[in-house]
């Protein structure tokens, strides 16, 4: 769907379903240099099971024009503007990596708007290594290669994609290559600079699901301890033999966790 958010056109994937204000809404938020398509399976499921599923392209990503935003709070404000535009008075937010930080900040600032929050591959803070940041700043292809190397479990680096016929790491690499120049750096810098993660987590009032890939090298599992400690009402799903690309590496497990969480009381 095409929708004006804060006066500028944006794109959201809806599983070929029209937005229906009478249905509950679930917004999916992608990570750095990604787009809506990382949520294809999970968002499509909800779109065909009674929900408005909106997998957005953040500004400067995928089919949404403009420059990437420079900070997590700016991304969070955009998500709230998205809810206004849909319109969805209340929604559940599902975010991955940078998208998880944006969803976390939005939920903290607008507890009346967010019914549930799912954070995948997230930590607070979310520091990014100097070598990666520098490569991204140069728009050096090495940055994409480093992320590809760190984003999948060792066994998934060799394939075995649950989605028949797709080469998982090649697909992830190509998706990042299609991002706009400067987008990866803007995204990584926003993650690196975001200092309010633990404070935001403490302000969240809704139930939170945290999904952790136990072989995640982008956001190592041990880095999530602070986030887990700050969340009042949280449940944790740990996915063994799974890296940072949880939705691709374990699509069914992620969907099952989301479904149980979203549909549960």
């Amino acid at each position, binding site marked *: 769907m095409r929708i004006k958010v804060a006066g500028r056109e944006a794109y959201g*994937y809806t599983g*070929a379903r029209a937005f229906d204000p009478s249905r509950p809404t679930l917004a999916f938020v992608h990570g750095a240099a990604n*787009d*809506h*398509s990382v949520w*294809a*399976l*999970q968002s*499509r*499921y909800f779109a*065909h099971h009674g929900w408005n599923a909106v997998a957005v392209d953040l500004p400067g990503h*995928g*089919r949404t024009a403009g420059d990437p935003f420079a900070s997590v709070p700016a991304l969070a404000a955009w998500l709230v503007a998205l809810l206004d535009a849909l319109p969805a008075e209340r929604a559940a937010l599902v975010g991955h990596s940078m998208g998880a930080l944006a969803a976390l900040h939005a939920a903290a600032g607008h507890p009346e708007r967010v019914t549930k929050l799912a954070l995948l591959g997230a930590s607070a803070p979310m520091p990014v*290594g100097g*070598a*990666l940041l520098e*490569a991204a700043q140069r728009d050096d292809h*090495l940055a994409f*290669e*480093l992320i*590809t*190397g760190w984003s999948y479990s060792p*066994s998934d*680096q*060799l*394939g*075995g*994609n*649950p*989605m*028949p*016929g*797709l*080469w998982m*790491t*090649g*697909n992830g690499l*190509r*998706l990042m*290559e*299609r991002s706009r120049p400067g987008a990866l750096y803007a995204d990584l810098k926003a993650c690196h600079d975001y200092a309010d993660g633990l404070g935001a987590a403490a302000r969240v009032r809704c139930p939170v699901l945290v999904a952790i890939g136990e072989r995640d090298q982008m956001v190592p599992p041990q880095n999530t301890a602070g986030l887990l400690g700050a969340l009042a009402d949280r449940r944790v799903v740990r996915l063994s033999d799974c890296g940072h690309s949880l939705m691709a590496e374990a*699509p*069914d497990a992620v*969907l099952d966790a989301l479904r149980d969480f979203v549909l549960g009381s």
Partner: protein
Amino acid sequence: MAQSKGIRFDTLTLHAGARPDVATGARATPIYQSASFVFRDSDHAAALFNMERAGYVYSRIANPTCAVLEERISALEGGVGAIAVASGQAALHLAIVTLMGAGSHIVASRSLYGGSHNLLDFTLPRFGIETTFVNPRDLDAWRAAIRPETRLLFGETLGNPRLEVLDVTRVAALAHDHGLPLLVDSTFTTPYLMRPFEHGADLVYHSATKFLSGHGVVIGGLLVDGGRFDWDEPGKSAGKFPTLTEPYAGFHGMVFAEESTTAAFLLRARREGVRDFGACMAPMTAFQILQGIETLHVRMPRHVENTRRIVAFLASHPFVESVGYPELEQHPDRALAARLLPRGCGAVFSFAIRGTREQGRKLIEGLRIFSHLANVGDAKSLVIHPASTTHFRVATEELRAAGITEGTIRLSVGLEDPEDLIEDLARALRAAEKG
């Protein structure tokens, strides 16, 4: 300085797409010889049918053994995914019908495998798809042939049988300037010798019957998507590929280019192409091709080494009029081959004798180790006379334009001891020369 940690080509030939079987621990890829796969429950069944979950339904659409092969060739080519089909011809057909319908147009190299030429020149026009054939070396001819209704540029990495080297970089750039993809038949080169996506190609296919499987025991095709082409780029490709950019009534209104940013082509090809045309690969075939690919990085250097020895022998033989191998000084594509094919120009090439058609027949029939048959890319050495076999439906004028004469003989050099192959050729040449 940080370095990327990508797994190298030779390791991928053995491991990409496969992992030990979870159920049994089997190290070799199991042959999932099953037509269908059991659903966990009704919701799981519906979700699989509607592409809400990953998995298997029916082996015409996808099969776990075939999926390992699809991942492996994608990894070796540097693509995003692939579809295994019944033959190389099925791969070419699948690529075309996924992208276009009646009223569309293709620009193709004139130097093609005879079967590809048949499909484009004789069969597809009956379904409203026309092709203009051009000299693959003439970029202006490629450009001039593009029409508003053109949807695809197509060539072979090494033209069949004269080994014109396709300037993938320049033809791809031309295609992209017009908002069009470039499809490349990479059968002769395999990803060991060239990875066309690195030079700008958008889609690659193989007759896996040849060097990939490597032993002449199966028929199979592989169609690989590079994942870079933007099917909906404003001012370029937008509006040209409605099969990918508009809702498809045959799959719940899915817009494939929205469903997947990188693999829209593959989604449509699988969800419509193999579903409806049905040219799927059998799992046993996929297993045999996987066995072949495991030694691709060992076999291809030997194929090339043997070929170089034989090319050198033939090039200096007084009864041989010409040898068409791009590494030779006189070959017009020598510099291009050095750039695109630094590891070698494959193991299939043609030569012509200074003799009559009858002497050509004697030569072929005098060979003892080379097998006279219609195939290439076998571990065993092969020989054929294109004018009377693979290209016999091609008009004489077209044959001449493709550089094929009555005396042209095509070899596919295998993995035997090269001295035995040279002795075989020397003996047959002597017999032919005597007349």
